[in-house]
Every structure is written in structure tokens, then in C-alpha cells.
């Protein structure tokens, strides 16, 4: 303290341009001005260029009729809809393909990660091979592979491969029966909701009982029975209010049913097989990070293998696994923008592709698209912060 005070005392002797504070202030002002100047430079040029080339500006196009069709739409959309609507269609398609891929990638990734840890040499080597192959080739190549080398070699619609259960597979995609909800279906939905609530209540009760008496209830089994059994019973009780729209062979295509286009299938398969390799590595690292002593201690306390995994190893491993897992999910979502390369109508394809071309407004399209992805990544980091505070080690 006293040395610092002394130093402060001698400050006036330093020439002002050698004073760190002034230097820092000067440098920062310079940086700020340079930064703003750069922005102004870009902005000024852009405005001048757009004006000179008579390119429209602003978001007036948002409500203009789009005039083009999109191959996959989750919300009603036609060529008569607006560009704004096309944006939402693209965004939903991005979310759909990301959601499906995250689901499958997690399953494949966890399985491969666990297999990689197996003591079985053959199994762990093959899992390692999978991981190394997919980690060391570009995602785009994986997508091209599934789309160009696998799916496009399926037979044409008239020679579709029939899979029992009214499922058809051809080069136009995978056709499955589409469930159609009939009038009484809301009763079934309601029963699912109630069963879930009941399941939660059972869990709470079991936990309280264990805390009070030490007695364990088979809460897992009871709630599973509730959640599966009750809706099923209700479903049959109200007369099976679920119809099926079956795919039927038409002149060109198989009509009806739910058509999963090859672009969607290739995206989901490609993204999930690729990301699974990274998830597998994250899972492996997480499990390895839990020290063996934890397992041994749990065993010596008399916990079964399942309980050890569920109550001791997993909570600790998850703390290590979730952050990288989360960033894999985020990069998967960002990678879904590669849909444009195989014709999947995701946000980038629809918005920075077709809409940009029809309107010519590059600045608006690219900015909006970037903003969407930035929002995704902010939401992800917000979740991460919440998760980190929740699972942070409470040190005593």
C-alpha cells in the first residue's frame, strides 16, 4: 500500500505522454474513432452505392407477395404469401431440421460414446473408428454423400420399396402414414397432460416419503405406467379418435401420407451422424472425468450399479458433458445452414437465397439472417449460464 502511495506521490514527474492513464485514454479514443470511422465509411459507401445503382432499401418487401413456392412448409404457405411468411417458413424448417438432428445426434452420440468406453476391444475400436472418420471429413461431404450417393440411388416412385405398415421409400423420399386427429382427440391429449402431472406428483410424494421414512417407492415404474397406460385406456375408451392418412400410389408420385423429402432425410441423417462423433467425444470425456474412487465409494455404500450410475456418476459427468454438448447443439443449428447445398429449404436457402435474389436487397437479408443465428447463440449462452450456476460445485 505504502509503495503505491509513494508512486502516486511521484506521479507529477512523469511527462504526460508517458502517463499510462493518459496513454490508455488516448489509445481508446483513437480505437473508438477508428472503429466508428470504419463503420461510417462502410455505411456511407453502402448508401451511396445502393442509391447509385437504384437498389431498393428497407423492409417494405416484407409484406410483398413472394410469388415462388417452397418444397417444404410447416405453416400454410403458397406463392401468394408474402416474403415475410417465406422467412418464417425458412426459419421453421431450420428449427425442424435442427431439432430432429439434435434428437438423433444425441442418441447416436451417447451410444457411440459409451461403446467407445467399453472394455470390449472390438467394440471400442469400432466406435473410435466411427468417431475419427466423422471428425476428420467435412460436413458438406457427409451431406453430399447421403444425398448424392445414397438417397438419389433409391428407386423411382413407380418402383418404390414397400415397407410393411404402408411405408414407401423411393428417390422422392420416405412416405409414412400421417396421423390425422379426429374430433375426440383432445380428450386423449388432455389425459396425457393429466398423466404427466400425476407422474410428477408421484415422484414428489416418493421423495418426501424417502426423506421422512427412508423407504423407497418404485416411483419410476408407477409414473411410467401412468403416462403410458392412462392415455392408452382413454384412447380406446373414446373410440380410437386417430385416423391415418395412408400414402397411395398416384400417377407421378405416391400421394397422401407424410412425405419426408430426401433433402430433409439427408440433412437429418448427415447432421446427426456427423455431430454424433463430437457428442461421443464429449460424453467420453465427461465419464472419464469422474474419478474411479466415486464409483468404488458408491459401491461400498451399497448402491447398485444402476443407482451408482444414476445418482453418483451421471450428475458429476453431466457437469462436464453439458457445456460441450450444448455448444455442439449450437454448432449443429448453425451447420443446418448447409441445407442450401442440397436444396433443403432452410432459412439461409429461402431467405438469403431466393428472397435475396428476387429483391436484390443483400444488406437486409444477410443482416436478418445473422440476427436470427445470433439470437440462437445468445439463448444458448443464457441457458449455459443458468445451467452453470445450477450445477456449480457448492464448496463448503
Amino acid at each position, binding site marked *: 500500500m505504502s509503495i503505491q502511495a509513494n508512486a502516486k506521490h511521484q506521479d507529477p514527474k512523469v511527462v504526460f505522454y508517458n502517463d499510462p492513464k493518459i496513454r490508455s485514454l488516448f489509445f481508446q479514443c483513437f480505437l473508438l474513432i477508428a472503429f466508428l470511422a470504419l463503420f461510417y465509411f462502410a455505411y456511407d459507401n453502402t448508401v451511396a452505392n445502393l442509391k447509385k445503382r437504384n437498389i431498393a432499401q428497407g423492409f417494405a418487401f416484407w409484406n410483398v407477395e413472394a410469388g415462388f413456392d417452397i418444397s417444404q412448409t410447416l405453416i400454410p404457405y403458397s406463392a401468394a404469401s408474402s416474403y415475410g411468411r417465406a422467412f418464417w417458413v425458412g426459419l421453421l424448417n431450420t428449427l425442424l431440421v435442427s431439432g430432429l438432428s439434435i434428437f438423433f445426434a444425441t442418441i447416436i452420440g451417447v451410444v457411440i460414446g459409451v461403446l467407445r468406453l467399453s472394455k470390449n476391444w472390438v467394440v471400442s475400436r469400432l466406435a473410435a473408428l466411427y468417431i475419427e472418420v466423422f471428425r476428420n471429413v*467435412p460436413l458438406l461431404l457427409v451431406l453430399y454423400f447421403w444425398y448424392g450417393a445414397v438417397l438419389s440411388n433409391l428407386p423411382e416412385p413407380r418402383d418404390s420399396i414397400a415397407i410393411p405398415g404402408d411405408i414407401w421409400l423411393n428417390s422422392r423420399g420416405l412416405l409414412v402414414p400421417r396421423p390425422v386427429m379426429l374430433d375426440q382427440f383432445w380428450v386423449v391429449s388432455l389425459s396425457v397432460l393429466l398423466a404427466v402431472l400425476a407422474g410428477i406428483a408421484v415422484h414428489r410424494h416418493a421423495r418426501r416419503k424417502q426423506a421422512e421414512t427412508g423407504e423407497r417407492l418404485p416411483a419410476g415404474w408407477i409414473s411410467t405406467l401412468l403416462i403410458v397406460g392412462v392415455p392408452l385406456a382413454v384412447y380406446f375408451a373414446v373410440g380410437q379418435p386417430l385416423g391415418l392418412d395412408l400414402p397411395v400410389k398416384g400417377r407421378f408420385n405416391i400421394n397422401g401420407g407424410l412425405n419426408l423429402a430426401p433433402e430433409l432425410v439427408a440433412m437429418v441423417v448427415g447432421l446427426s451422424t456427423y455431430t454424433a462423433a463430437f457428442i461421443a467425444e464429449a460424453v467420453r470425456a465427461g465419464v472419464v472425468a469422474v474419478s474411479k474412487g466415486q464409483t468404488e465409494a458408491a459401491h461400498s455404500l451399497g448402491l447398485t450399479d444402476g443407482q451408482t450410475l444414476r445418482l453418483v456418476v451421471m450428475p458429476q459427468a453431466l457437469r462436464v458433458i453439458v457445456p460441450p454438448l450444448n455448444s455442439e447443439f449450437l454448432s449443429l443449428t448453425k451447420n443446418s445452414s448447409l441445407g442450401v447445398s442440397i436444396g433443403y429449404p432452410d432459412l439461409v436457402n429461402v431467405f438469403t437465397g431466393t428472397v*435475396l435474389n428476387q429483391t436484390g436487397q443483400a444488406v437486409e437479408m444477410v443482416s436478418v439472417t445473422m440476427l436470427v443465428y445470433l439470437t440462437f447463440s445468445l439463448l444458448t449462452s443464457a441457458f449455459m449460464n443458468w445451467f452453470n450456476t445450477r450445477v456449480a460445485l457448492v464448496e463448503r
Partner: protein
Amino acid sequence: MTDATSLSFVRSAVIPEQRPPHRVSGPLVWMRENLFSSLLNTVLTIVFLGVVGWVLPGFIRFVLLTPVWVASSSKDCSADLLQHPVGACWGFIDAHFGYLFYGQYPAGERWRVNLFYALEALGIVWILLPKAPFKSAGLAFFFLLFPVIGFVLLSGMPIIGLSTVQTHYWGGFLVTIVISTVGIVASLPIGVVLALGRRSAMPIARLVSVIMIEFVRGVPLITVLFMANVMFPLFVPDGWRPDSLLRVLVGVGFFSAAYMAEAVRGGLQAIPRGQYEAAQALGLGYWQMMIKIILPQALKIVIPNIVNNFIGLFKDTTLVAIVGIFDFLRTIQASLSDPNWRSGQMPLAAYLFAAFVYFIFCYGMARYSLSMERRLQTGNRH
């Protein structure tokens, strides 16, 4: 003193010979312990070996035993026309080899590309091999001299007798290498500056760095490329006409710099405070401290991360295809669209070849990164 021998137990008779212990090593034991230790393991082993036994022979037959090595169109690889089953059509790669590795680079000038590849390999081996001599000369070569030589070599300079080859003749693997090299050469210095900015005490410098890093890391590369491709020309005065490859290079450099900054920041954070304090106590200024004390240590410990970033960058160069640059994968796609070569089984062979090329490079770098990581771990052990 008491007699020690009378208190302690000493065996007085030789014990009889025993049978040798049960074998604890050897292939059978290994197999029992590793492959068939439990019912589940046995089932897994059999299932997985079954899959291997089912896939592998077909794969080897396809790749090595029955392929067509030389072809002039897809007809030469057609099983229907040849009337016997055929494997991979390597003739496709053979026929397009020049296009895949040099693009439309004039045939008479391709030695320049080869020389470029050789110099690049020299530079990389020089700076990455831990035992290579004159490390700083190697760094100077790769980061200062090589970009200039490489550019002159590829793009040409009529004064010294190298004819000009415009960038739209470049293509294939050459473009992949150019983009990833520029990415790494540009991103490392910028990444270091951004990382220092992010850890700076100056709030504005920190803010600017954080905004840049997080912005770029928050969006997909493809949108950055779109930005470079369609927005960058609008940002500059009307007369400037940036070349399409140059725009993509700016985008890629910008993008990888943000990721590099995060890798470098990790290294900076790992340096103990004592190092900073010791440097300050010696009277070194900020830049002296950073250049002489902190960065050499920080960069060294993040070499694995930098190499991993580079692997990512190398794989991401494939995305430039979407903004119309003909990189390696794009030239394969273009060759597949060639009507003479359009057939159902062609893509499989072409993609296998592409995967092989990318895998060799990425896996090699990954192994290097792993070995460096092990090396550094022992080096840092106290």
C-alpha cells in the same frame, strides 16, 4: 540385547515346489477378458464382428479388387455395358485429376502450383516439427515470406517471367489450400490482437474485441461468406472491385480470427499471474511483456488448440462452394455433373476419394495435435 532370531519367525525348511501360476497373459486370456467377459460383451463382440465381416469384404472388393482404374466416360464403368460387376470407378478420379488438383490452371504453368505445394509443406513441417532448427526463421518464412512468394508464384508477375494467371483459373485442391493457408496466416496475428484486446484493462478495447469475437462466433460461416460476397462490395467505394476469391478470403480470415482469439485467450488465462508480475517488476512495458514473456508461453500451450482450429478451418473451406468458388469438393461436384460422367454409382467413388483426401490431412493434423498435447503435459508437470 535379546537374541533377534529367537523372536522373529524364520522359515527353517524349504517349501515344496508349486505349480506355475495360472496364465495371466496371452491372446486367449486377452480375448476372454476383453471380448467375452460377460454375456453382454460376448453378444456385442459377435454382433460387431458380424457387421465387420459383412461390410469389410464388400468394401475391399469395391475399392481395391474390382474397380475400373482407367476410364474415359461413365460408360467404361457401367456394369451393364461391361457385363460384369464393377467396383469403384477410380477412372473418374484419374480422368479429372488435373482439374481436381489445379482447377483450370494452365497446364504449362502447373509446376508453379507444385512448387507452391512444396513450399507450403516445407513451411508447415518447419514450424510444426518440435526439433526443427531455426524456429523463428521458420515462423518468419511461413508468416511473412511464404505468403508473398506464394502469391507471386500463383498469380504471376510478368516482370520476372511468370505470366499472370487470374484467380478464376485457380480451382480444386489449390483453392482449398490457398484459403486454409490464408485463413491461418491472417487469423493468427489478428486472433492474438483480439485476444489481447479481450483481456485488456481498457474498456473500449475490450468491448470492441468482445463484440467482434462473439458476433462472428454466433453466426454460421456461410452467412459470413454471404456477407463477404454480397455486402462487402457495397461497403467499399464504387470504383474498388474486389476479386471474388479475395472477398471470400477476407470472410474466412475474419471468421477464423475470432475462433483463434478464443484459443489464444485460453493460453493467456493459463499463464500464472506471477509471470505478468515478474515481467512488470523487471520494468517491461505492456508490449515488451507480451511479446517477450507472455505470448511465447501462451502460444506454446495452445498449439494443440490452434491446430484443432486449423482442422476446423480446413474442413470449413468446403463452404466456399456455396458462394461460387471452385474448391476441391466443388470441383468433384462439378465433375460429377458432367453428362459424360453422370451415373448412379459414380458419386460413391468420388466421395470416397474426397473423404480419403480430407481425412489424410485432418487426421494427420489431429494426431499431431494430440502428440503435442501429451508433450506439453509432461513439460508442464511440476
